[in-house]
């Protein structure tokens, strides 16, 4: 989504202020003037400056540029759905991966995404299973990454 510079500027300015306030709580080091707060404070101050100028620019250009532009994909239900599914799939993996195990979560992630992106169901099921197995073999067997077994822990090999 395209936002006016006024919004992105405000966001940056707010972040800058938050960091400035937060880093005031960092401790001072005895006998030294330069503590852990100095660097983030300088960065936050510059960020605040950028934010304010962007806000000003966005406000000045409000006649030519709308406050926000909805891109084409957000008007299409299929594309918005796909966009959200990609993010949701990663979140579900993070939350449930350890519990249900890589085989199930991996192949389900692929299957759902394939279907959302319009792959034929038969092709989707077969490719999801094969691709999950290949990735599992490459990482678990060849590179020895401890991918979770989840509910199949008792049958691990």
């Amino acid at each position, binding site marked *: *989504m*395209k*936002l006016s510079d006024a919004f*992105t500027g405000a966001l*940056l300015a707010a*972040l*800058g202020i938050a*960091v400035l306030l*937060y*880093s005031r709580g*960092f*401790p001072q*080091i005895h006998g*030294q*003037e330069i*503590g*852990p707060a100095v*660097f*983030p404070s300088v*960065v*936050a101050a*510059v*960020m605040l400056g*950028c*934010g304010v*100028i*962007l806000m000003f620019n966005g406000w000045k250009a409000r006649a030519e540029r709308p406050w926000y532009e909805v*891109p*084409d*994909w957000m008007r299409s239900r299929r*594309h918005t759905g*796909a*966009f959200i*599914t*990609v*993010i949701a*799939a*990663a*979140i579900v*993996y*993070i939350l449930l*991966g*350890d519990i249900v195990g890589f085989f199930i979560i*991996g192949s389900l*992630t*692929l299957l759902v*995404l*394939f279907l959302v*992106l*319009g*792959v034929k169901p038969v092709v989707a099921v077969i*490719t999801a299973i094969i*691709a999950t197995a290949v*990735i599992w073999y490459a*990482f678990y067997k060849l*590179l*020895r*990454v*401890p*991918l979770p077994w989840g509910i199949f822990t008792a049958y691990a090999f």
Partner: protein
Amino acid sequence: MEALQLAFGMVFDPYNLWVMLGASLFGLFVGAVPGLTATMATALLVPVTFFMAPIPAIAAIVTATAMAIFSGDIPGCLLRMPGTPASAAYTDEAYAMTRKGQAETALGAGLVFSAFGGLFGTAVLILSAPMLADFALHFSSFEYFWLVLLGLSCAIVITSEAPLKGVASLMIGLLVASVGLDNPAGFPRFTFGSTDLLGGIGVIPMMIGMFAVSEILRFVADTKPEALVVENAVGNVFKGMWGLAKKYPLQIFRGNVLGTLVGALPGAGADIAAWMSYAVSKKFSKEPEKFGTGHVEGIVESGSANNSALAGAWIPALVFGIPGDSITAIIIGVLYMKNMAPGPTLFTQNPQNIYAVYLLFIMANILMIPLGFACIKVAKQILRVPRNILMPIILLFCIVGTFAINNTVFDVGIMLIAGVVAYFMEENGFPIAPAILGVVLGEMLEQNFVTSLIKSDGSMLAFFERPVAATLGVLTLAAWFLPPVVRRLRRMAGA
């Protein structure tokens, strides 16, 4: 001499050769599929290289990126869609040539002069890096502070049309870099009680997010219909190349020099090099009116520029630890993981490693000719690979690959957030490269800044007392203040 022998031994080890072959095929494929970039190829390789010895790990990245930058020309030529951003500058030109039935000349020029550009950039790397390293041995924290700041400033001045947004992007990167314990005071900053954040935000998960996940999001949000492959037979791509080389020697040389230079400047990589080179080529051409109508001259010049930029970017990366582009930003992360921390001592302590890197570059660019030729032959099949099957697999690969670095799903979360943030930043005109450089260089900047301030008892004047530091300092200030002044003068002159 002994070091050179060792280097040969490491590079021509059978395992390493297999890795190079595999990485070549991977790079050619990724480059040839529109929407998958050379930077993404690097990001996807990192989890795999994590488990390799240093030289094969570097070999994989060097070969894959060189191949990807070349093969990005293929869909540009056949589909009018650049395979990687580095080919975007001359995509229209190449496509126009294809429509005139000259696809083989466009592809051939891309291939042959890419390889040549890569070798030229490598030659400059071999000649200049050790000299610079020698010089850099005497650098103190003052020089490094300015050098990092100059690098970051260049990245903003060159890459962004909107410098303000570039600065904002850089600040975001620097802020991310200050999370965790790794600061001169050893105080846990912005960790909010999380033990996962104590070690800071992992650079590799972030890169995978910013360069791979964001591309997947861009793909699923793309509402444009799929492009159709031009159904022309591609003939002998090497025909007429010698003629082109004899006709455009100056253009080739200029493209190589400009490409290497732009590559060596922090923040600007192969894509900027190609755009600049194409513009230069048009400006100084005897037949500028032919540009855009399917004229090979610009392709010859900018096609060699983008590959020489790739090697050029390694110069500051190896010598100072300052990445020349986003690919070397990832590579610096890999070098640290492999105990090959970049810096001038890399050249004196283990010279065999540096020699091996040179050899890898030379081999990758020579290998490009036969493998690139084969890739052009099967290009139509590659372009038919359904991307709606490819992208979900890449997402799963990203998740597993990110997990593999530290075996924690926390990193997967970082990857996802970085991907979404990068997507929205680009949508709103904030360039990504400064943020990445900020993350990679933040710690170095702060370390040298604080050390220098402590040495000088808080006086900023000391930052200009040593001659080299003063020069770098003045250059940095010039990079900040000259562009706006010049712009204002130009406006006044125009008014």
